[in-house]
Every structure is written in structure tokens, then in C-alpha cells.
């Protein structure tokens, strides 16, 4: 099966390309949701509320996790096994903390009386951040597999493992950037 993957041109690796095409469709989904948000926002009858503070902390956390992910990746490439394993675990931990902050954010919203079934302004935040969290959970699953590989397989940066790790890294950075976009979006369109 691997042989079918040999690309004839010297450009981008096919699976990486496929992943980026997948990003395109995820982006389109969030564009659709945020556009719906804008359309509904401009129609009036819109409850304004302060975004929960937990979302600020979660944003910082996920940006940090991207940094640790990158450090793990460069550790893997440069042959530093300790950095590779250590920062990978750190990334997973930060990812879990991110989900906890998101959950806390939803709790904060609930406490100030903004519920899922209230004014659409709140519903949109719940649905969009929830859908994003689902994508982060997918990322956490990927990270778990990466950690299992890191600890169960002998450290050997072969091309195949490098590719697999790159795909995981890129997905993780993607959900990170996606959240930063969504957070800025929520701040701009209150």
C-alpha cells in the first residue's frame, strides 16, 4: 500500500496534501458558522454578554501547547529523545487543560444566565466552541497515539515516522490557530 503513495512529482507529500484539503473543509465549516453568526448578529435582538475569562486562559494554554508541540517535533528531528518525549507529554497535558478551561468557560456562561437554549448569541458561542473542542479531542487522541509510539517503539526518526509525526503536529497547530481565530472573532463581534 505504501508504494501507491510514492509521489511522482517532487512537491508536497500526498498525505500531507490530503490533510490540508481536510483543513480546507473544516475551515469552510467554521466559516459557515461564523457567517451565520454575523448574519444573525446584524438582525438585532442580540444579547450582549462578556466572554468568560476562562476563554482567555484557554487561549494562552493552547498557544503554549503549540510551542511545546514544536519543541517536541524539533527534538524528534534533531535526535534529542528526551525533548521529544517530554514535550509531547507536556502538549497532551496542555491540551487537556485547554479542554478543562473551555468547560469552565461554559460553566461561567451558565452562571451569568447565558444558556444554550437562550438567545442565539449564547447558543452560537456554545455550539462553535463546542465543535472546536470536539476537534481538539480528536487532536488529543492523535497525541495519545503519538505518545504510545514514542514510548513503545525504539527511537528512530525514519522517514515514515517523521511523516506521521509531521501530520500529527500540523493537525495540532491547525486546531490551535482555529481557536485563536474563533476567540478573536468572538471578541470582535459582541
Amino acid at each position: 500500500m505504501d508504494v501507491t503513495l510514492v509521489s511522482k512529482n517532487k512537491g508536497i507529500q500526498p498525505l500531507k496534501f490530503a490533510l490540508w484539503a481536510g483543513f480546507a473543509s473544516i475551515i469552510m465549516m467554521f466559516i459557515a458558522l461564523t457567517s451565520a453568526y454575523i448574519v444573525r448578529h446584524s438582525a438585532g435582538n442580540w444579547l450582549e454578554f462578556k466572554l468568560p475569562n476562562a476563554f482567555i486562559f484557554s487561549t494562552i494554554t493552547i498557544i503554549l501547547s503549540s510551542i511545546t508541540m514544536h519543541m517536541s517535533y524539533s527534538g524528534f528531528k534533531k535526535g534529542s529523545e528526551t525533548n521529544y518525549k517530554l514535550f509531547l507529554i507536556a502538549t497532551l497535558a496542555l491540551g487537556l487543560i485547554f479542554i478543562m478551561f473551555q468547560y469552565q468557560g461554559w460553566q461561567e456562561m451558565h452562571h451569568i444566565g447565558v444558556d444554550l437554549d437562550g438567545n442565539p448569541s449564547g447558543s452560537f458561542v456554545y455550539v462553535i466552541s463546542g465543535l472546536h473542542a470536539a476537534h481538539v479531542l480528536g487532536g488529543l487522541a492523535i497525541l495519545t497515539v503519538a505518545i504510545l509510539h514514542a514510548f513503545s517503539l525504539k527511537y528512530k526518526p525514519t522517514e515514515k515516522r517523521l511523516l506521521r509525526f509531521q501530520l500529527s503536529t500540523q493537525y495540532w497547530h491547525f486546531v490551535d490557530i482555529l481557536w485563536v481565530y474563533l476567540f478573536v472573532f468572538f471578541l470582535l463581534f459582541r
Partner: protein
Amino acid sequence: MSTQNIEVREEVDEIIEKNGYDDHFHDHHASDKYKSSFVGKYIFSLDHKMISRQFLITGIVWAIIGAAFSVIFRLQLGFPEADMAWLKPLLGKWIVLNDAGIGSISQDFYYALVTMHGTILIFFVLTAGLSGTYSNFLIPLQVGARDMASPLLNMLSYWFFFLAGLVMLYSLFLSTGPFSGGWTAYPPLSALPQASSGSKGGMNLWIISMTLFIVSQLLGGINYVTTILNLRTKGMSMWKMPLTIWSFLVTAILGILTFPVLFAGVLLLLFDRSMGTSFYLSEIFIQGAALENVGGSPILYQHLFWFLGHPEVYIVILPAMGIVSEIMSVNSRKPIFGYRAMAYSLMAIAFLSLLVWAHHMFTSGMNPFITNFFVLFTLIIAMPSSIKTFNWLTTLFRGNLRLNSAMLYCIGFVSFFISGGLTGIWVGSSTLDIPLHDTYFVVAHFHLVMGVAAFFGMFAGLSYWYPKMFGRYMNETVLKVHFWITLIGAYCIFWPQHYLGLAGVPRRYYRFDSFNSFTGWEGVNEFITISAIVVFFTQLLWVFNFFYSMWRGKKVTERNPWHSNSIEWTTPIIPPHGNWPGKLPKVERWPYDYGKDGKDYITQITPYAEGEEVIAH
């Protein structure tokens, strides 16, 4: 089937052996998973050719179900007084008996039939059945790849589609019936379970099924694009690709960009249904009670839906266009007229299709100044469409036509595309659309231009590639009989509907005799229904031909029976796993060198002869 692989070496083998590209594919004999077990070969197959056949046969099954539904609701429209009690064994409680024992189709079920007919035909047959079959089959064979970029995702794509179908099938057997609010599933009808019996469990299953279907489409689409852009064989530059591949590429990109938007729309609908949100629900009184929902907008759903919904009709028609371009050129023994113009107009249609969704919403109370924008872009689509049409006609012009069934279907396609496309200009302009909206005129328009036309593209492709798929031919006489009855029959069904629509007869109505304005059409409706029944049984004839020929059809003895240039015909009659037994062919020229320098055809892998002119296409 593998016994047929022993065949004489032909000239193309020599060329591939000499010039081909050795990717050492056959050095790895380790993986046996493609050949051995029944399950690995026929069910959870990773081979694109088998997955393509799975899509095809599943699509055929769905097409029969969807078409049978249309015959049942046509019976109601053509013969509203007729006794339908004979359908009771099949439909059970959906046939309501009155005191005199006369049976009629229940009104709820009528709407369910209309809804399911639309959903099944558009998504399961003309999207998955058409793109799934041909993209899977032709992309690796025509670009010169061993298989798809990810055979695993490809297999998952089929099985998600299969699951989507299973869920939809299950919804047909619910006691409250399948969803019945139209294939567009507009809220509030679709958002409120109490709105109709079909909006209860049937709608939940509809949403689940659509979600699985979207996953299938994305997995498939990502794979198609990746394969086309990354796995082309040596020498196969973009401008040497057959137009089929161009059309699959554009279709897949369109799907990747628009299906997620449908998912977003359906997700919010699901929240409105089950979590009490008010994305689409505003102040509503239903069954004497006021709902708690405030501030939603049902129009928001229409925007999200039609952002997929409109490109979706191009997802349906573009592959058919590619298939027709290829087959028409081969059977005219002439290069396709305006190769690049054909590819550019595919791209133009796809791009414009993203800007015109609101032309489905002219009657939704939109600002008339905004409608101008959408009218303008809608009418601009007429330009790439007519470029394509004129190019097909000029390809035929002075061609050395071979009027085999595949060619006839192509000509039929162009005919339907013209007669359905011209009314697109009518309904694309808001002034005309406002009176014509939701009448039979629209039904006639889209059935001709994307329904029947896409089917003819599909039929053409099967007549033409059946030998490559199954190593046998379908019966040509039966195909021609099928062609003529279907061509004439489809016009008999849809042509009169234009007149109904112009008279203002609305679509989706259960019966018309309680409205004075719509009486007088009984004879026409009977005529349409009888035509529909005839066409339906003719399709069964085609299906019989399809399956019968798989085992009993005339065997293919020639590697390249249509004397075509494209490289799928350089593979053995039944291509093995990996498609080419030895090296991959190296592509030298574009696929349409027919009748050049007095030669009938020159395959894509034939190197340029000494002193041969290289024509820029």
C-alpha cells in the same frame, strides 16, 4: 476473472516497456490483502476498481427505490380517484381505505415519497452513484496511478455512504414514516417534531444519514483531489489530462468546499430540534400553544443550505459533462473542440456556483437590490455553459460519427442540457422566478437540466467503460431501445410540466381538484404519469441488461475496443491490482489526437514521431 489476463502482447506493451516509468510496484509481493479472501476482495476492498463498482451497484439499487417512489406519487397525481388498495401489501398503513374499500395514498406518505425521491436521487444516486463510481474508477486509470492516494480513506468513503443509506432505509420503516418536509428540509417544518409525522424520528434519521453522507463525500473528495494533483504518472501534466479528470477534479474541490457548510446548517438544525436552541425558530404558535423560542431566523437555514444546495447541482452535472466530452470526442474521431476552453469553463462554472445560492430564495423576502447581484451571477453561468454546449456541437460537426449507444446517450445529454438550460435563464432572473417559484416549471427545469441529463451522462459512461469494468459488453440493441424510449419518455414527462408551471400549478401538492385555478390539467397529468411508468420499466430493462451482461455479455477480446487515446485502455482487459502489470506508462501527448496526420488515433503514450508537429492546445 484473472484467466483473462493472459493475452497477447500488444504494441502499447512494447511502448510501456521501453519508455515507461518503473516505480518498483511489483517488487513488493508481501501484501496479499488485495487478492485472497472474499471479504478482502469484494467487501472491504481497498482497490479503487472494486470500490467504484460498489458505489455503482449501491447507486443502482437506490435509483430503483427512488424512481419507484416517483412512480407511486405520479400515480396519485395522474389518477387521484384510482383505487390504490392493490399497493396495500407493499405499503401497509400508508394506503388509507375509505368506507367503500377504495384505497388512496395517505397524505403524509405522499409528502414522504416526494421528499425521499429528492433526497435519494440527488445525494445517493447522482452524487455518490455518479461521482463515486466514475471518480474512483477513472482517476487512477486515466492519470496513470496504481491506486488512490489513500486506499483506506477510499474504502471508508464507500462504507460511510453505505451506512448513510442504511440509516435512510431504516427511516422508511418507522411508524411515523421518513422525513416528509421536502429534500431541502426547511425549518420550521423540519425543526419541530410536532409539525408533521415525518418531522419526528424520520427527521432525526435524515440528519444522521446526511452527516454520514457528508463524511463520505469529504473522504472521497479529498482523496480524488490528492490523487489527481499528486499521483499523475510521468509526463501527465495538467494540460494532458482527459476532460473527465478535469471535471472530477473541479467537482471534488467543489464538494470539499461546500459539504461542510451543509453540515454546519444541519448541525444547527439538530440543536434546534433537540437542545431547545433558537437558531432557526422565531415566535411560533403550533397546535394552539406558543413556543418558547425567540429570535431565530428560518432564512438563515436557507442561506446555509443553498450554499451547498446550488453547487450540489454542479457536483451532479460536472462529472457527466466530463464523461460526455471524452466519449463524444472518441466517437466523433475528432479532437474535442476547445479543450482548454472546456476545462476553463468547468472552473468558471464551479467558481460562479459559489456566488449564486440566493437565487433559490428570491421569494424569501430578500432585498430586491441584493437579488440583482444574484441574478447577474446566475445569468453569467450561461456563458461557460454555452461555451461547453457549442464545443460539444462543434466536436460533432463534420465528425466521423459512430452512433453507438454511448454516443447516443451523449447526444441525449446535450439535448437535455440545452432544453433544461434555457429555462434556467427564465428562472434565474428574479422577475420571472417570483411567479414561477415552486411551480411545475421549476420541476421541469431542474429535472431536465441536472436530473435526466446527469443520468444520460451516467448511461453514456457505462456503455463506454463497461468493457473496462467487467470485461464484457452490454447488449447494444437493448441499450439503443432503452435510449430512445428514455429520451422520448423523459421529454413526455417533463415538457408538459412547463405548461403546468406557466399556468401556476404548484409543485408538491397532493391533488388539485379542490382548486378551480388548477383544474383542466387532468389529462396532462395522466399523460405524464403513463410516460413515467413506461420510462420506469425501461430503466428496469437497462438494469437487467447491466446485470445479465456481467456474466453473459459478449466478451471483450480487444484491449482498446473504442480505439481511444487515453491510457486506461493500455491496461490489460481486466486490470490487475496496481492497474499496469509492469511499468507505469509514460504520457507523451494530450488525449485527443484523433485523425491527426491521417492516423485514426494516436494513444497518449505514443512518442512524437520524427518531424511530427506539436500542436499547442
